[in-house]
């Protein structure tokens, strides 16, 4: 099984996010394999949630489509299990705390270990509240990724000291979604993080163009692209293969 650090090994990581179950779980399995073949270094699989408060319209809509199409947590686990043996890159989950909590931390992370999930990103689980989930996740070799935001300021040091997997640096204020311009002083935040940890830093939220990939790969150890990929799948559904290959190719080439 790949570990998160493999994605950053000797290269700038290009991390792709997609929503499990949009348009179907079978299509998601294909899209994940396509993304891997197109050259992404790590895949973040979104588990749909009824109320994704950190997401912009694109991912909210994908979440609604996935739930309407019947995607449930057990189905997401089965889908990931079905491609486990073909995955050469690390795979992490991104979801909200409630689906994890209600399923039961132990049961959830045990299942993650079985199907080769090596990390999890939970946007509504800040540093202060991580304890209970992190302890259980650790037992099953699942790393809990912490987010750092433009507003984290003096919290950066304590978050960085305790970080595992990678640090998800939120590029700008607000929710996920494509943005034309990002005005946060990201180099300053990255260097503050680097003072406290060796854990790699990847920048996400609002990144959609090869120029942005180029710029942020210089600042950090990797970039995360979500909404732009989710939008391609939203427009083309199960036929998104070609669009994904073309888009990821262009982005990958830039990094």
């Amino acid at each position: 099984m790949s570990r998160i650090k493999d994605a950053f090994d000797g290269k700038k990581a290009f991390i792709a996010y997609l929503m499990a179950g949009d348009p179907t779980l079978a299509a998601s399995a294909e899209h994940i394999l396509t993304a891997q073949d197109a050259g992404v270094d790590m895949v973040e699989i979104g588990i749909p949630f009824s109320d994704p408060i950190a997401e912009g319209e694109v991912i909210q809509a994908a979440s609604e489509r996935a739930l309407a199409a019947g995607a449930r947590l057990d189905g997401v686990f089965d889908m990931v299990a079905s491609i486990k043996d073909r995955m050469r890159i690390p795979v992490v989950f991104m979801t909200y705390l409630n689906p994890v909590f209600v399923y039961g931390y132990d049961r959830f992370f045990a299942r993650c270990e079985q199907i080769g999930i090596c990390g999890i990103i939970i946007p509504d689980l800040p540093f202060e509240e991580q304890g209970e989930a992190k302890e259980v996740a650790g037992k099953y070799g699942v790393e809990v990724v912490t987010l750092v935001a433009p507003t984290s300021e003096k919290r950066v040091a304590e978050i960085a000291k305790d970080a595992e997997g990678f640090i998800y640096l939120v590029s700008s204020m607000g929710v996920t979604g494509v943005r034309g311009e990002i005005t946060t002083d990201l180099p300053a935040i990255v260097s503050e993080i680097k003072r406290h940890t060796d854990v790699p830093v990847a920048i996400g939220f609002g990144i959609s163009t090869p120029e942005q990939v180029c710029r942020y790969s210089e600042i950090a150890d990797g970039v995360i692209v979500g909404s732009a990929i989710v939008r391609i799948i939203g427009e083309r559904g199960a036929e998104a293969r070609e669009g994904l290959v073309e888009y990821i190719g262009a982005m990958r080439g830039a990094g």
Partner: protein
Amino acid sequence: MKDGRFGDFGGRYIPETLMNALHELEEAYMHYKDDPDFQSELDKLLCEYAGRPSLLYYAENLTKQAGGAKIYLKREDLNHTGSHKINNVLGQTLLAKRMGKTRIIAETGAGQHGVAAATAAALLGMECEVFMGKEDTERQALNVYRMRLLGSKVHPVTSGTMTLKDAVNETMREWTKRVSDTHYVLGSVMGPHPFPMMVRDFQSVIGREIRSQLQGVEGRLPDAVVACVGGGSNAIGAFYDFIGDADVCLVGCEAAGRGVDTEQHAATMTHGTVGIFHGMKSLFCQDEFGQIAPVYSISAGLDYPGIGPEHAWLHHSGRANYAAVSDDEAVEGFELLSRTEGIIPAIESAHAVAHAVRVAKELGEGKIIVICLSGRGDKDVAAIARYKGEDINE
């Protein structure tokens, strides 16, 4: 309470982008809550602007009709803007101003909290934007216009179920976009710490007044305090001062909608399970995979799938009891209070009226109960007429 917890309930489960703002808010609140200058400014506004103390009224006709305990009404409906929401809004908006914020944002269900926020913003010279589920903007069109009249911008929320829960989601998203000059005036005892504690404190004036007013007329404590619960702010406001008085029975009334045995209710205590959502660990109506369930109530203000963490704790510890009251029963309570006392209650408060009549019968003569009449019902008249099959223009 430790680390923003009521037992295991509460906490601070919110995106990192907002964590610093929550820490700053807690720090500012802990400072100003004991600041004589802040408190005297707030007290002055509560008395001279909001009309506090609100009356404690002996509802003699309703008492006779119920046939049992004496029923008093705590008249929060007589506050400026017509509900208890103003107590919290004045506190938070003053606090925001002291913190140097120039803009407030708020969610609203029935529109009572939105109207109160818009009012406080107009009074205190703040910019204000209110997020309201599109379905609720249609149910409560008059309140939408009222907010705009007061100078606020109203955003109809079209995501999810287009009701209160989605309005909260959208207000949180807005806060992550713009936090430096903006305070989120949360309308209930919910959300991440310090909101449940802070909103409770601002609402606890209700219970303190009940205690002293009832002491004045009856020379004793009530046997029961009854209030409706959505998020639970008027209930916690009425209950809080009595939590230490074990003989005072505390009763919350949640919305059973079309019945707790149907899919269409908002009965979090009856059907909810422990979850983590909207910043707090509490009870929620949800499915086995932790997806938040669509809920329903005739009352937009109770149409919420969760409940404040302190209520979850009071329920868990057995200190308070919670009953589910259906649409039909609430409408009966609405009509009953209107006919017997000439007081038209908010449909939210009518849930408490309906259940209180049962409690009065059970307790019997010689006992005293207080209903927190959290709001007035003008906003609901057209909707109730429609419910009864009469289509009238607002």
